[in-house]
């Protein structure tokens, strides 16, 4: 038998067997470093700062929905104790006032939600309350969207959010978002912890 040359004996292919191992190594690295959490949250717009004291407007009592949260995380809604759970429904009823009650808002454009907390209120409670207020508006907008433009957005889960800007603006003009935050009281200022 003829002797094979050295070149013939060497395989002229790069072994791809370890490719998977290398890829695995990289894969595990990226698996570990990945954080897929996108930042989500409640987007708000703060009022601009002004040095002078705001002049106290004469608002009718029936148009103001005052929510107070104290340092013990208890709620006072329109001078009565309340739970966070019932807040959403009460706000919705207050804004729309379907039964034309004397003690609820005259019309949605005149309704004002006032939120006041203490410096000792827990952030968690504050956010829960704010979330409920916002949820009330979102639900009202969704309902209004269905009323004004029925059938257009049946498939969308959140009807209001998927609408074109002009529609959204029309609805927001009917039910404007007014959540006013007063300067907090300082009864329960945090001490040394």
């Amino acid at each position: 038998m003829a002797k094979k040359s050295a070149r013939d004996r060497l395989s002229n292919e790069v072994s791809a067997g370890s490719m998977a191992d290398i890829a695995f190594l990289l894969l595990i690295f990226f698996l570990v470093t990945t954080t897929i959490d996108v930042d989500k949250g409640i987007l708000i717009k703060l009022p601009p700062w002004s040095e002078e004291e705001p002049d106290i407007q004469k608002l009718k009592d029936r148009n103001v929905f005052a929510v107070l949260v104290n340092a013990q995380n208890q709620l006072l809604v329109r001078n009565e104790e309340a739970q966070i759970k019932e807040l959403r429904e009460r706000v919705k009823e207050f804004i729309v006032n379907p039964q034309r009650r004397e003690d609820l808002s005259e019309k949605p454009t005149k309704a004002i939600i006032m939120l006041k907390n203490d410096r000792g209120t827990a952030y968690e409670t504050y956010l829960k309350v704010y979330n409920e207020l916002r949820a009330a508006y979102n639900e009202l907008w969704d309902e209004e969207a269905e009323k004004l433009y029925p059938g257009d957005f049946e498939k969308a889960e959140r009807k209001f959010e998927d609408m074109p800007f002009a529609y959204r603006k029309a609805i927001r003009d009917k039910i404007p978002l007014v959540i006013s935050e007063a300067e907090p009281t300082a009864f329960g200022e945090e001490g040394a912890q």
Partner: protein
Amino acid sequence: MSKFQKKRGKTTPAISTASLPDIIFMLLFFFMVVTVMRDAELKVTVVVPDATELTKLERKSLVHHVYIGKPTAKFIPVYGTKPTIQLNDKIVREDRIKNDIPLFIEQHKLKVPENQHGRITTSFRVDGKVTMGIVQDVKTQLRKSGQLRVNYSARARAGELK
């Protein structure tokens, strides 16, 4: 002899692993694309509260973060155990926020084209147990520096409200 016995006698054919690298590479590319390297080391512990009315924050370059919480174990000797403010990656002492927050916002504005300045968002990542006093102070400073777009970062709530 029956056919069944014949078959059993044979060795099981090996599954071809030739396409394994391709599959792994596919996964690899997926993770490479979705990976976001954590931009700031957290020096305070933050467990954000739950909420339902969430909006996604887009355009990472237009967002800066304010973390408020108790310092992590490593930083307790330096900063104590009281709730502390961290702006992106720096801890700021509470009595210095008057100067540091406007400066911090100006620094961010420098990196953003001018027509986008109105869309810069401050994302609050605040621990649920922190009291509102310190949050309010930061909010006041933001208002004074004209930074009004604010996001309260929260997790999506799964169950019912407690």
